[in-house]
C-alpha cells in the first residue's frame, strides 16, 4: 500500500485477529480442523513456525455440536488419575453433560502440533457453550469463519409451497392404501 508507512503496514500485517465460529450442528472434528488452522496462523501467507502469527478463535454454541453416526454412545474419552484403579472411561454423552465445552477443547488440543507452543495456542482459544459472549471479547471480534458443514433443513422448516414444488418420483394412485 503506497499510503501506509512501512512500520504501520508491518504492524497491521502481524496483528493478531479475533475470529468467531458458530459450532451449532457442526461435527467437532471439522470445527477443530478449522480452528487449528487459524490458531497456528497457517491461513496467512506470512506463516512461519517462529513468527507467532496465530490468531484468537472464539467458538460459540459448543453445547449444540453434532457427532455423526453413533459416536455419542460409542466414542470413549479415557483418562487416568495416576492412582491405582484410577482408569476412567467416559462416553461422549456423559462428558458433554458434565462439561459442554470439553469435547471441542479436547478435539482442538489433540489436533494442535505436539510442541511447546500448544499450551500457548490453547490460551488463545475461547469456548462458550451458548450464544452468550463476554462484552470485551465481543468487541474484539473481527470476522466470522464459515461453518464447515452445510446444515440441512428439517422437514418442518420447509414451507408447504416448497414441499409441493419439489419434484416427485411417482404419484400414488387414488386407491393406494398406505399401511
Amino acid at each position, binding site marked *: 500500500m503506497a499510503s501506509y508507512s512501512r512500520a504501520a503496514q508491518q504492524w497491521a500485517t502481524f496483528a493478531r485477529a479475533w475470529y468467531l465460529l458458530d459450532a451449532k450442528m457442526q461435527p467437532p472434528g471439522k470445527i477443530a480442523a478449522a480452528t487449528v488452522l487459524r490458531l497456528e496462523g*497457517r*491461513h*496467512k*501467507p*506470512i*506463516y*512461519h513456525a517462529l513468527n507467532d502469527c496465530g490468531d484468537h478463535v472464539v467458538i460459540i454454541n459448543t453445547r449444540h455440536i453434532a457427532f455423526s453416526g453413533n459416536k455419542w454412545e460409542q466414542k470413549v474419552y479415557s483418562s487416568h488419575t495416576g492412582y491405582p484403579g484410577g482408569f476412567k472411561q467416559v462416553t461422549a454423552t456423559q462428558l458433554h453433560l458434565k462439561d459442554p465445552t470439553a469435547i471441542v477443547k479436547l478435539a482442538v488440543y489433540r489436533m494442535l502440533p505436539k510442541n511447546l507452543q500448544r499450551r500457548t495456542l490453547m490460551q488463545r482459544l475461547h469456548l462458550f457453550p451458548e450464544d452468550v459472549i463476554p462484552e470485551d471479547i465481543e468487541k474484539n471480534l473481527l470476522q466470522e469463519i464459515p461453518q464447515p458443514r452445510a446444515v440441512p433443513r428439517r422437514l418442518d422448516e420447509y414451507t408447504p409451497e416448497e414441499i409441493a414444488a419439489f419434484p416427485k418420483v411417482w404419484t400414488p394412485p387414488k386407491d393406494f392404501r398406505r399401511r
Partner: protein
Amino acid sequence: MVVLSAARWVRSRLSDRFWRVQEVLKYARHFRGRKNRCYKLAVKSVRRAFVRSTKARREKKRFLRALWITRIEAASLEHGLKYPAFISNLLKSQVELNRKVLADLAIYEPKTFKSLAALAQRRRQEGFLAALGDGKEPEGIFSRIVHHHY
C-alpha cells in the same frame, strides 16, 4: 666458556597460542554453558556444530520447500482454491513458476497472486467442461498449449 650443545637447550615454545584458541572459540561464543568459554569442551562442540551444519544444508532445501507450499496453500485458500488444484492448473496453463517465486508473490504481490488464482480457477473450469461436456463446446482459451521452438 664455549658450550657447543647450547643450541639444544633452546626450547621451541608456542607464541601465538591465544590466536589459535580464539580461532575455535569464536565459533562457540553463542553456545550454552561452559562450552562457550573452555577450549577443550568447545573443540568438541564446534566440530559437531560444523558437521550438523553440513548435513543440514540438504534438509534446509526440504524445509524451505515445505514452508513455501504452506504459504502458497494459505494464499490460494484465501482465493477459494486448494493447493493441488492451484498448482496443477497453473502447470496445465503452462505457467511454470516455482514454489519459491509463488510464495514471494503471495506475500509481496497480492494482486498478481489473485490473478494467478483466477487463471488456475478458469483453467480448472475448462478442464471440467472438456471432461464432462459433450465435446460440442469449443475448447477453452487457457487450455491451448503453446509450443515454443527454440
